[in-house]
């Protein structure tokens, strides 16, 4: 049934009929059960009428940043910047949040991060260069359009902000090296969250985690993870760099300064495509 209100009204009338049947037959137990269902349906109907929305009123606001947090008062964009610097590569919001939680204090949520991203471009356009850095999307190597799923820092060279076919893998490996180094340098002080993050990232890299004969996995050894990641990186790096460098050259030639940060818009994409065709 397409309209939820219609569906509810149908439910309500079905229930009323069933209640009548049960009551007539003197079946109080069943009638009681049905009345409870009727109350639910009516409540849902009321809510729908009030809000025009399905009955999912967040009685409590979504958990936002708590007012006081572990002594850290940095603005969210600083948190993101710090996490990205640790990784040294473009990253998805989820990974940024994980890195943040593993190594830094302060509140940062994925939803906060996405609203942040919208602000950045607006702020840049109103007064370009007013801030020392901006958070911007990565750029697709072929169309130079924004890859909104990945966040980068404006101060990074274009080559670092462009995503070619191999870049997600090289970035992942590079990022893992970054995480492993951070875990390694904090030694015993590494938080459980940090160790878990490293474990999770390393588990997908060949030979990064020692498996004992019984199949038991030990805690990740940062040095070993770095070596394993590096070994795979060596396979991809040259090809990846070449793609990114070529795309960066193209971007510098054909895109304006702000496009080099926030990507080429669609009409430009079409033009580019037309040119190349």
């Amino acid at each position, binding site marked *: 049934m397409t309209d939820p209100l219609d569906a509810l009204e149908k439910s309500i009338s079905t229930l009323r009929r069933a209640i009548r049947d*049960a009551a007539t037959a003197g*079946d109080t137990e069943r009638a009681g059960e049905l009345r409870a269902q009727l109350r*639910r349906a009516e409540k*849902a109907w009321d809510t729908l009428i009030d809000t025009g929305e399905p009955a999912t009123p967040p009685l409590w606001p979504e958990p936002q940043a708590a007012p006081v947090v572990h002594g850290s008062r940095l603005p969210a964009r600083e948190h993101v910047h710090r996490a990205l610097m640790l990784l040294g590569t473009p990253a998805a919001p989820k990974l940024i949040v994980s890195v943040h939680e593993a190594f830094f204090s302060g509140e940062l949520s994925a939803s906060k991060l996405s609203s942040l991203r919208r602000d950045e471009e607006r702020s840049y356009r109103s007064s370009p260069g007013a801030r020392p850095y901006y958070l911007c999307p990565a750029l697709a190597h072929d169309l130079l359009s924004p890859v909104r799923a990945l966040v980068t820092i404006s101060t990074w060279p274009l080559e670092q902000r462009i995503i070619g076919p191999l870049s997600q893998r090289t970035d992942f490996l590079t990022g893992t090296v970054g995480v492993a180094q951070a875990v390694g340098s904090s030694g015993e002080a590494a938080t459980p969250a940090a160790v878990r993050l490293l474990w999770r990232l390393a588990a997908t890299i060949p030979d990064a985690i020692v498996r004992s004969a019984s199949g038991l996995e030990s805690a990740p050894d940062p040095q070993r993870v770095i070596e394993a990641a590096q070994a795979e990186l060596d396979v991809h790096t040259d090809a990846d760099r070449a793609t990114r460098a070529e795309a960066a050259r193209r971007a510098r030639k054909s895109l304006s300064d702000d496009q080099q940060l926030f990507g080429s818009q669609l009409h430009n994409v079409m033009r580019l495509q037309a040119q190349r065709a």
Partner: protein
Amino acid sequence: MSMVSALARVQAMESMTAVKVTAFRHRRLSDRPLVVIPLTMAGEAGAPLAAMVGSSKRNATLLVVAQPRNRDQRFAFAADLGELVTEYLNSFRQDRRGEGEKSRYSDAPQLLVPNTGGIKALADLARMCRFRSTTGPYAVADVVPEFGMWLTFLVERAEQAGTCLLLPVTGMLTEHWATGQSTLEDQNLASLMAWISPPPGTDVAQAMADAESPDICPPAGPTTSPQFDNRDLAPAIKRFDAAHTAGDTVALAAAQAELRELIAEQIQPTWRLMWDAISLLRSVPEAPRAAARFGRDCAAFTSYSDYRDGGGLPQRKRDTAIGAARRLDRLEQALVDFESDMAFDDPFVLADRRSVGEAFAGTVVDADPGRVVLSDSNRRVLRPRVTIRTDDPVRLAAGTKLVSPHMPDSHKARIVSVLPEGGTMLVTVEVTGGMGTPRTPKADGVPALDRHIAYLPDPGWRPAAEFPASDSTPWTHHSPAQVPDADATESENAAAEGWGHDD
């Protein structure tokens, strides 16, 4: 499906009411069954949402997982349910009789779930629990693995035909009643009950329609209706999560109470139906041979109890090749035995077999009770012969060994010939057991002329199939080294779950 059972369905369809297909209830029904109604969360494997449990209608316990995606809450639920179920199981470990090999508990537990989906949900829960470690970073309560192993035992036992430690109530009902709908629809407890015993004041047609309306009859689980999920459950869980994150204890308690009430309302109608079904089933007399089968259930329960007391290891994840072959053999034999038991006890089931020519009944038209032959060892033995005229389309070959529900248990016979005559069949059988000797023939050892009698194939006793010795130690005696799956990779899985639900 035989012609007789198919016809029963057509009769039900025509008369718009369920019809009987057995004279007896072939499963023992415990005086104190434990009804378990498991609910799971859609889209999530082995994520329990709730369970209503209790051994009498008035004594229901509702367990709810407020956030099924949360691993800790899941195992807290498993521990609570585990406590209840193991306490129930243990209450049957009181009265033990017999010595040595024969020693066993005199009664056994019985878990009843609404449908086969309920068994699957328990199987998943069992698998989720039985390898859990009670120490280390992902420790669970002691009862959790114990519960998992017991549940696994019950689920495995339920695969075997004729057992009654764990049963779906829909299955028990359809064994006795045929409806005028499909077997698929019979899986729905409410529609099945609509045919057998529609709510007062409602006819079958209306009751059937109501049974499929999630408003009137919430599904008996394990999955809840999408309508309920989207309209009621999702918002309630969301409120719980919000209160949880905000650390607001008052709101949390309120959200929890609301969730409980919501789920109680969903599960309550099924709870009532379960007990209605149980009292309906009680009104059906129990088949004579059900007691002997129950004895084997008691033996199995006793032996697994002892194994658990000895600190036995959890059941394997998957059988070895030999283990699987042995299990299959056991299941097949049990099925043959059960079907034969039922046909022996129950004229309805016998009629089923008769209609396909696997059994026959008729009138004795010729009898030679004093027939004596020389045996291979040159002894004079009594070998009476009788000829039975039957309307049944007999398909049994000469030489088939027979038993009869109408003769003493010792009576055995063998088919000599099957000859069509007119529209009927003449079956000549030779009595090979229970007839006495030429000197002292037994009075009731041979069916008399003009008597009505039925015969069916003797399922016989068959030696357990031989399997290679490498695996021949009983599964109860595996040394730890032979059970590689108690399991190293579990720790990896536990860890994976630890970081699993982070979305």
